[in-house]
């Protein structure tokens, strides 16, 4: 009987949790005894080291790497020393470290759940699954970060919660807002949105900018990036959460950074979160007064200006815990127990989680390209048409009819598209799969084709394209494509034991 773990693979920090003998979620500390582990990698003498040391060195030389979660799913390589890695490879390194540490502290791991931001696109989801596989984790499910956090809050709340709640998650890299219906331990996601590039990391960059300006003012010289690193900036930022100003010593010069100026500079970023919250209320068809509580998630919610913005936007005091950077992983551990093989659980654990029920909804629209009449322009146009809308309860299955456009058409080109809004313009959708279906010859135009999209519990989509008359069909499963990752063994070789 192995253990289940939930892993919050964060942009800046990662955390892992399991459930204890009584079925309650608990944090699993890393081998340094810390609750959270910096998602940073340092290359030393052909070994890849994950953690605090790497974080401190970040930006100092080419042997460190961080923030690769922001690049997940993109077809790019990141340099570390003189080798290149895909973002999935680097995430795998972090996951591997967490797995090893967890095994040391709690023993064998049978199943794991990894969390992802709600607005991750299909490729980023796949890349995350990839990373888990490379790290040697048995991951059957991934879960959206806000959903995991909501589950944790609902679980901790016992059976007292009931009504509409919001999960406000501002972490290191991304911002997520979800509107959730909670009924005891029944968690139902109504609407969710995110900003891909909005988090503590952007705040750090602003601190660096401020330091550079001040340094120039004082010395007339340009501040070299190694003299004031990302991790320096992060420390000062955290101090500014408690103080009105901080004095920083750089090269025997003293500069002063004030909270007031910092808040002015980050205002436009906080505004983005506010706008997204309001849009999400509309999407969920609720008004602020319907929201019974706001759960805070993510380290950056400790920034006073952020907290104030939450109060203003939601017109209430948010609900928080001391460990805002741990709740996602705690919720993920619960999710792992809830979804996973019950044979791994003891009777008490089973009892503890039996009340849990989670319903997610799609965070994207899925569709296909088709020719549609544009009445306004009085012409036929190539457009994106939606098959599964955003906000559908998962799992779901939808079928739409399309028709061949001309006589004797023996082939159709098929594109599976993904977009957040129900876009019509093909310029603004992501094509996640392309292919063809051959059709029988010699038929008039207007042959009916049935496109069926099925969105699974584990956020994998299966598509089927059928020619109605002949029954000819094509099936596609969008999942875990092993894109451009190095093999597991290659990563292994570099990992510190």
């Amino acid at each position, binding site marked *: 009987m192995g253990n289940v773990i939930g892993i919050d693979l964060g942009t800046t920090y990662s955390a892992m949790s399991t459930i204890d003998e009584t079925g309650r979620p608990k944090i699993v500390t890393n081998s340094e005894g810390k609750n959270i582990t910096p998602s940073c990698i340092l290359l030393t003498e052909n070994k890849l080291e994950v953690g605090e040391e790497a974080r401190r060195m970040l930006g100092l030389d080419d042997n460190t790497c961080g923030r690769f979660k922001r690049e997940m799913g*993109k077809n*790019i390589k990141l340099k570390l020393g003189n080798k290149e890695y895909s973002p999935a490879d680097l995430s795998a390194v972090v996951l591997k470290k967490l797995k090893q540490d967890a095994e040391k502290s709690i023993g064998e791991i049978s199943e794991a759940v990894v969390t992802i931001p709600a*607005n991750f*696109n299909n490729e980023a989801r796949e890349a995350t699954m990839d990373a888990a596989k490379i790290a040697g984790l048995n991951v059957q499910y991934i879960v959206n970060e806000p959903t995991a956090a909501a589950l944790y809050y609902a679980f901790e709340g016992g059976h007292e919660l009931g009504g509409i709640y919001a999960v406000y998650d501002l972490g290191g890299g991304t911002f997520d807002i979800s509107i959730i219906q909670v009924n005891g331990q029944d968690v139902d996601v109504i609407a969710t*949105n995110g*900003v*891909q*590039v909005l988090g503590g990391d952007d705040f750090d960059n602003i601190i660096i900018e401020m330091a550079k300006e001040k340094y120039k003012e004082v010395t007339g010289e340009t501040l070299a990036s190694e003299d004031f690193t990302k991790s320096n900036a992060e420390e000062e930022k955290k101090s500014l959460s408690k103080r009105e100003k901080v004095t920083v010593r750089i090269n025997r010069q003293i500069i002063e950074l004030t909270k007031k100026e910092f808040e002015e500079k980050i*205002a*436009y*970023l906080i*505004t*983005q979160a506010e*706008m*997204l919250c*309001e*849009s999400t209320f509309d999407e969920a068809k609720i008004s602020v007064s319907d929201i019974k509580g706001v759960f805070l998630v993510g380290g950056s919610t400790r920034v006073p200006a952020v907290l104030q913005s939450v109060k203003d936007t939601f017109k209430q005091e948010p609900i928080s815990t001391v460990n805002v950077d741990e709740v996602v992983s705690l919720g993920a551990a619960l999710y792992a127990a809830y979804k996973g093989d019950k044979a791994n659980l003891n009777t008490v654990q089973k009892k503890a989680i039996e009340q849990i029920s989670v319903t997610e909804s799609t965070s*994207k629209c899925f569709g296909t390209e088709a020719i549609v009449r*544009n009445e*306004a*322009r*009085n*012409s036929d146009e190539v457009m994106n048409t939606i098959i599964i809308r955003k906000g559908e309860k998962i799992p779901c299955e939808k079928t739409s009819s399309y028709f061949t456009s*001309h*006589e*004797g058409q023996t082939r159709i080109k098929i594109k599976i598209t*993904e*977009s*957040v*809004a129900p*876009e*019509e*313009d093909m*310029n*603004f*959708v*992501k094509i996640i799969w392309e292919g063809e279906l051959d059709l029988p010859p*010699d*038929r*008039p*135009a207007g042959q009916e084709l049935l496109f069926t999209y099925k969105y699974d519990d584990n956020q994998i989509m299966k598509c089927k394209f059928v020619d109605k008359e002949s029954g000819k069909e094509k099936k596609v499963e969008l999942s875990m494509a092993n894109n451009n990752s190095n093999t597991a063994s290659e990563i292994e070789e570099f990992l510190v034991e």
Partner: protein
Amino acid sequence: METILLLLFIFFGGAIFRMFFAGLGAAGRTIVGDGSLSENWNRSMGNFGPFTVRLIDKTVENIDLKMLEIKGMIPTSGGSLDLRVMLRDITDGQENSSPVITLIEHQQLPDNKTFFMNVNLGVIEHGMGIHKWVEMLRIVPMFLIPPHTGKRRIQLVSAIYDHNNEAIWGNTDTYFELDFSGTGYLEQSENDKKARSLTIQLSVAVALADGQLDTSEIDIINKWILKTINVFDDEETKAELGELYQKSYDNAVNPDNNITLSFVTKEMNEYADDNIKYQALSLCYDVMTADGEIATEELNIIKNLSKALNLDYLEVERMRDKKMVDFDTSQISKESIEDILGIDENTSEDQKRKLLREEFKKWNDRLTSLDEGPERDNAQEMINLISEAIQKYK
């Protein structure tokens, strides 16, 4: 005969033909009547008479049709044969004849709308023929468009080609009358030319809005002219259009002519269909962003133009968005973002905030789908600009 065969060759030779045996809808369906073509071919020693074609009027499902039927013996030494048919409008005499076009897609030439059908007759051996009239294809008069409006005389040109693509038989003696009340395609293209000339004037007027015509702006307009002309493949038309459009451009840039936007838009409303109007507006956008800057006056012009041309606002907005991701948004200032988004100065602050929020959501949603690159950077820049702009209304 010689000239007709030559004519046929120009229209038929070398083109990639499609097979038309499978019908399209009730009106266009081919090969019915008494048994199929293959059942009617006969090797019998009987006297078939010479190969002939005829047109028969028939009404099927309330649609008036002209059936082309064939009979007789084909002068072939054997091999696969094709019957090819086209229609000419000879109202103004044989020498001024023009092709007739059709709206039925499978009865068109592959690369334009000219009525043309190719029916493969199968492999015919020497001495084979057809005893009785067999229907070969159907012409649907209501879908035909002659060059001009009115009562038109249409000539049916038919020919049989052998497997070497050589004409072995031809007929030009079959005619019918077509009473056509719509706008002929030549008339329409006169309208079209006019509308495109006006498009050029419109774009020049937009370019001149800031007082001068930059080379980048001239460049864009020239490229557009070339693109418009190059859809035609005969040199004569190209030259004619080139001259026409050049003249229209020269007229527009000549300050003496004092071409006003209100004049051009009024003319456009008369001659241009909606599709051309949108294309014109799109060109104006390109011209506007050609110099890498968007001036507020230019934006106002676009706004007024779409109003004056009675264009659908949503459609214009869609077009704008498409342009926006291609445009280097780092050039846009915090101050002009509201203009670019078409937010009216006189709107209430609450309303402005709401509009900005909707724009933010739109661009943020799109960011998820855009791949790394300038388009994505531009969308991100739009987001930042919008979030800066909204600060004012908090």
